[in-house]
């Protein structure tokens, strides 16, 4: 079962990291994400961080979604 929620790296010592999300704290291996630093968000699966979240891509997706919602709202106002 995948945990969908990205976790934030609070501490990193060699290949071990302390990560948190929504008040949950967990010790995971960071061996598979050598580039990840404290403050980064990572995808965690079965005790290992498997990927680092790309913040600029996340923001781009978020902006696109907000734009979609705004366009739909405007369309609704025009038709009513």
């Amino acid at each position: 079962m995948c945990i969908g929620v990205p976790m934030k790296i609070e501490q990193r010592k060699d290949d071990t990291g302390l990560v948190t999300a929504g008040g949950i704290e967990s010790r995971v291996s960071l061996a598979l994400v050598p580039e990840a630093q404290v403050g980064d968000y990572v995808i965690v699966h079965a005790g290992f961080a498997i990927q680092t979240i790309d913040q600029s891509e996340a923001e781009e997706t978020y902006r696109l979604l907000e734009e979609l919602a705004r366009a739909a709202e405007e369309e609704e106002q025009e038709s009513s």
Partner: protein
Amino acid sequence: LKYVDEFRKQAPAMALAERIRRLGEELGQVRLMEVCGTHTMSIFRNGIRGMLPSNIRLLSGPGCPVCVTPTGTIDLAIALARRPEVVVATFGDMMRVPGSDSSLERERAAGADVRVIYSPLDAVRFAADQPERKVVLLSVGFETTTPGMAASLLQAEAQAVPNFYLLCAHKLIPPAMLALTGGAEGVRLDGFLCPAHVCTVIGSEALRPVATERGIPCVVAGFEPLDILRGIEGLVAQVAEDRAEVENVYRRAVRPEGNPVAIATSDRVFETADTEWRGLGIIPGSGLAIREEYRHRDITHAFPLELAPGRDHPGCACGEVLAGRIEPPECGLFGKTCTPQNPIGPCMVSSEGTCSAHYKYGELDE
């Protein structure tokens, strides 16, 4: 951004549902399959089936690692657990899966040393702490889990912990997608909602053969409701425009090349092999075996056991459900003798199994 609430908002969800409706208006029946148990659960929990027009159908495929593990593998784990010198270490979701005549949970109740782990590294620690025992890690899962298993084996090597073994039963998703949709008996699909975290490891490019060889649109999507709706929108758009490409709408976590460190770690330890899937039979190149160099860590090599072939409950239709041939309510046992409290097949046992999802959320959605 915290990367959670931003992708659960209602206004963009409604806008996406409307776009999907418009894109699908002129189309006949569109059959889309998700191949990830976490997608299945998120789709049901968020009522996504109910947001779609009636001609756009979502099917659940072989996306739950527990569910696709054949009975023979469970029987092997049980036979090992019964040996007094063996400790079986497993993720919790394997505990209740029925083998031919028992389960790991029942064996533990009867005195076997079966331990639930959160990380495969826990099992290496058990082995280091108890050198007189043989610790067997049930190495089950898709490409998401494989690198961590490989890293654990390499750690046991580095720390010279000799009594740590794997029962290797991994499965690979792209070969299963190809097998499921190939040949005369193949399931007819119009698109794959591709597994989010498998793709964080293997990369979106690994799905290209599905799009090119099968002509089936592939969209990689995350697990939040807006991610899934964007994935469905992308698939319906490809169907409407008669395209079959690999698209990635989960770019915050999935790169075209995946995670090269994770892939390399896995490749050091494992090589591809044929393997049996529940419901799909033996699929060439869809599994992993431990490489020759590390074969002393393979419990089936270190400790060969001859077992009778696994026996499934005669009425259980998990195989048909996993292949997308039927939906759970079409199974004669569903909701009658097979429930989450008293599961008969693995798709009802696992919290992310298709039958369990239907049982918990189905009536709300349909």
